[in-house]
């Protein structure tokens, strides 16, 4: 498919799409290849077609809901489809090349057609028409069916040529005669010399026994094996040799006729190459659509809506309603944590999301990239509504697990800037960009300056939707940019939790423990349970106190230090207001 989107590896990894992708299970070999390609598209019509196909597959699954045997049988045949290679989807007029097909290749064509035709017959008319799963190659199928003991296997049967039948009958008679002579020779060897050659080409016999065999050299070949024994073989008789010569001649004739049959069948395949290619393409699309549809049903996914960018480079509103970042939701389920769905709307090109560390900014960004990548990969998305645009580039700038900054001679800051430069240069035709804690690796004043400049530049970049998260509050407020914050910690619950632990107050650094002894995993679980991942405008009342200080307290920071930090934070906030 044309119109591949440059969804970067960074964006893919950041949004944990791979965890979703591992549940995407096409059944046919070509479907599996397509899965491995991890394609994300930037051609809106191509994406719309994939979504249409998913819808059609959902309809098919709904129709077959009461008939699981149909679904099972379709799955069975999809799994058995072989790749057709040059004479399949990639043929595109290579029909002439098909003249050289061998036994195995003809087998694959036959097996493909048997399973494809079975699928074509199993699906309802609407599905068949939608995916172009019709079968019109009865002539070729009929010809290939002549060779094979079942619908899939293949050999060059006698039925293909009268001459073949005759020569094979002759070979069978020669074999029978030869077997008769051999059986008689075996019996004589046993009777006369006590040598039992049944099932054995040769025997190892003791020196003493071999002596008398040497006298019958016309019947036996005798060669030394070791110091004490000999290898003895039964010599073929003149009559057996004569039969073998006749058989060789008959086999050559058989081979010649087989070549003619192969050429004839290959020509038939060549004549159908275009159709075979179309079948392969259609059944692969059907397989992929079914796999997407199964996910859509299992995880209640909905079709995303795409709106075109305006001629002036402005973008239509991004709407996210009750979206689930599935990898996070699955993790929460595993840890028995509450998961908050994301509701979010953005008319502006650029948004900045504030929030403290561990406050949920990253999850919000991950959710957005996850939805956008899935939507442009042709999948339905886990949201009640996801309205967006199609972007030629989806990119992430921020920390990456195992990034190569140090090996490339770059510091963490250098790596971030380099990554931004790539995003900036790559986004000329439009892009969906997210920046997680950009410039976090330098001082706050420098970071705020760089961030402000970047936000200002992005705001005017046509066709680019960008969302930046940061915990630096002094980023310039620029007209036309939306400033948001994550709802963050449920302070009331956090206060209750902190009080509930029965901590005693103490002076700074008094060595009193924070919350009662509790494992780190349990503490993180409690913090996550109190975290609200929604986004609200930054101007709205954020409530008193700092999320970061509260989180530090929940993580076990000395209670005295926590108290002092709260005081300093309150003083600074008061001064800022003045």
């Amino acid at each position, binding site marked *: 498919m044309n119109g591949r989107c440059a969804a970067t590896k960074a964006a893919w990894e950041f949004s944990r799409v791979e965890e979703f992708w591992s549940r995407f299970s096409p059944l046919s070999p070509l479907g599996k290849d397509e899965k491995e390609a991890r394609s994300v598209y930037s051609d809106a019509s191509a994406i719309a077609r994939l979504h249409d196909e998913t819808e059609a597959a959902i309809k098919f699954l709904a129709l077959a809901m009461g008939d699981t045997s149909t679904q099972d049988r379709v799955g069975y045949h999809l799994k058995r489809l072989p790749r057709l290679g040059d004479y399949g989807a990639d043929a595109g007029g290579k029909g002439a090349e098909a003249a050289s097909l061998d036994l195995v290749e003809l087998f694959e064509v036959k097996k493909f057609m048997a399973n494809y035709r079975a699928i074509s017959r199993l699906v309802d008319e609407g599905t068949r028409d939608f995916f172009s799963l019709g079968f019109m190659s009865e002539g070729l199928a009929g010809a290939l069916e002549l060779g094979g003991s079942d619908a899939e296997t293949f050999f060059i049967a006698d039925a293909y040529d009268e001459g073949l039948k005759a020569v094979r009958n002759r070979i069978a008679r020669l074999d029978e005669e030869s077997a008769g002579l051999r059986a008689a020779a075996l019996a004589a060897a046993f009777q006369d010399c006590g040598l039992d050659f049944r099932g054995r080409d040769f025997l190892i016999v003791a020196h003493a026994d071999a002596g008398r065999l040497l006298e019958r050299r016309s019947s036996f070949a005798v060669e030394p*094996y070791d110091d004490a024994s000999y290898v003895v073989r039964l010599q073929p008789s003149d009559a057996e040799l004569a039969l073998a010569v006749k058989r060789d001649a008959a086999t050559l004739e058989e081979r010649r006729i087989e070549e003619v049959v192969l050429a004839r069948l290959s020509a038939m395949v060549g004549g159908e190459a275009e159709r075979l290619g179309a079948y392969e393409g259609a059944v692969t699309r059907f397989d992929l659509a079914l796999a997407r549809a199964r996910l859509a049903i299992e995880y209640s996914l909905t079709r995303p809506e795409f709106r075109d960018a305006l001629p002036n480079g402005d973008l239509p509103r991004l709407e996210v309603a009750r979206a689930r970042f599935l990898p996070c939701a699955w993790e929460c389920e595993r840890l028995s944590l509450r998961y908050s769905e994301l509701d979010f709307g953005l008319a502006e090109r650029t948004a900045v999301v504030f929030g403290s560390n561990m406050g949920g900014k990253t999850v919000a960004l991950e959710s957005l990239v996850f939805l956008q990548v899935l939507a442009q990969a042709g999948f339905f998305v886990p949201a009640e509504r996801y309205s967006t645009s199609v972007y030629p580039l989806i990119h992430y700038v921020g920390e990456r697990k195992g990034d190569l900054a140090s090996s490339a001679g770059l510091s963490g800051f250098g790596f971030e800037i380099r990554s931004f430069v790539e995003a900036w240069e790559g986004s000329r035709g439009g892009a969906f960009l997210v920046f997680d804690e950009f410039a976090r690796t330098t001082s706050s004043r420098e970071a705020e300056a760089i961030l402000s400049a970047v936000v200002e530049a992005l705001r005017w970049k046509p066709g680019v939707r960008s969302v930046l998260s940061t915990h630096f509050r002094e980023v310039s407020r620029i007209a036309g940019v939306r400033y948001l914050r994550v709802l963050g910690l449920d302070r009331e619950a956090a206060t209750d939790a902190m009080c509930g632990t029965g901590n005693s107050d103490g002076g700074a650094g008094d060595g009193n423990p924070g919350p009662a002894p509790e494992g780190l995993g349990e503490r993180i679980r409690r913090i996550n349970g109190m975290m609200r991942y929604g986004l609200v405008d930054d101007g709205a009342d954020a409530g008193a106190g700092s999320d970061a200080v509260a989180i530090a307290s929940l993580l076990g920071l000395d209670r005295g230090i926590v108290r002092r930090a709260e005081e300093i934070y309150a003083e600074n906030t008061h001064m800022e207001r003045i």
Partner: protein
Amino acid sequence: VRLEASDFVGRVTFITGPSKHCGKTTLLNACLALLRAAGERPAFLGVGFDGEGRDSLSGVRKPRIAIEPGEVFVTAERYLSSSGCLPEILDVLPGSTALGRLAVARARRSGAVTLVGPERNEYAAGAISMILGEGWAGTVLVDGAINRITQVSSFEGARFLFSLRVSPQDVEAQVRRIRLLYALHSLPVLRRAEGEGARDQAEAFPEPLFCLHGPLTEETAKRIPPEAATVVVEDFTKVFLDGPGLSAFTRQRGLALRSKADFGGFVVVLRDLTRGKFSAALKDRDIEEMVSYNPYEGLSGGAA
């Protein structure tokens, strides 16, 4: 012991050996003859491609393997037409080898085939699963790769035979090899803890137990916690210690297996050596009970 058709019917048997010219392919032919005489239509395949051109026993060019109608085999597509057995293609194995793609075929008449099989254990296991799963054969013989006993564990429930050629020059080395394999095969089995019976069995082993994931080699042995009283490995094919190394290891702590491969015994081909001398070198009646001798010996005991 003598090899019998019943040893093979309805099961998967790998024929392995320690080196080239150890008589694997000749043994395969002997096993096939037993099965045919019993009316069985087996499937057979190789692991990789044995490029050796000459047979170890007769010294002549290695014969291709005779095949009878109804039998199933695996080979590269280029060898199909020369088999003369009017092959019916049943399937094509995934991937490719240096000799091209591999096909599973059924002989429709007698012929002679060249075995070419998957190079990797898991692909060989996949081919066997396909043959059994599709019902093309119930009995499978595998002409295994030499000196790669790990292949046996790739297919659960497989049995294996170990073929060796022994001469006066290497009798001591071969006997050591036999003893080591016998010692490995005789290691006790600790089943996964599933219910009360399993716990009872675990109690027979000195504790604490240490489960080693992966091979037991001289290097990995050094990393085992010193307090481990019994080391448990997946199966004996994961033990890569030589005889002295194994003895030293088991003097210090127990060694147990999670599962036991089904071992059919040693098939010993003697050259310039009598059975008496071999037996005297082996000096172990228990092991000797697992030895069968060259199935091609004729008349009054052949070379004995």
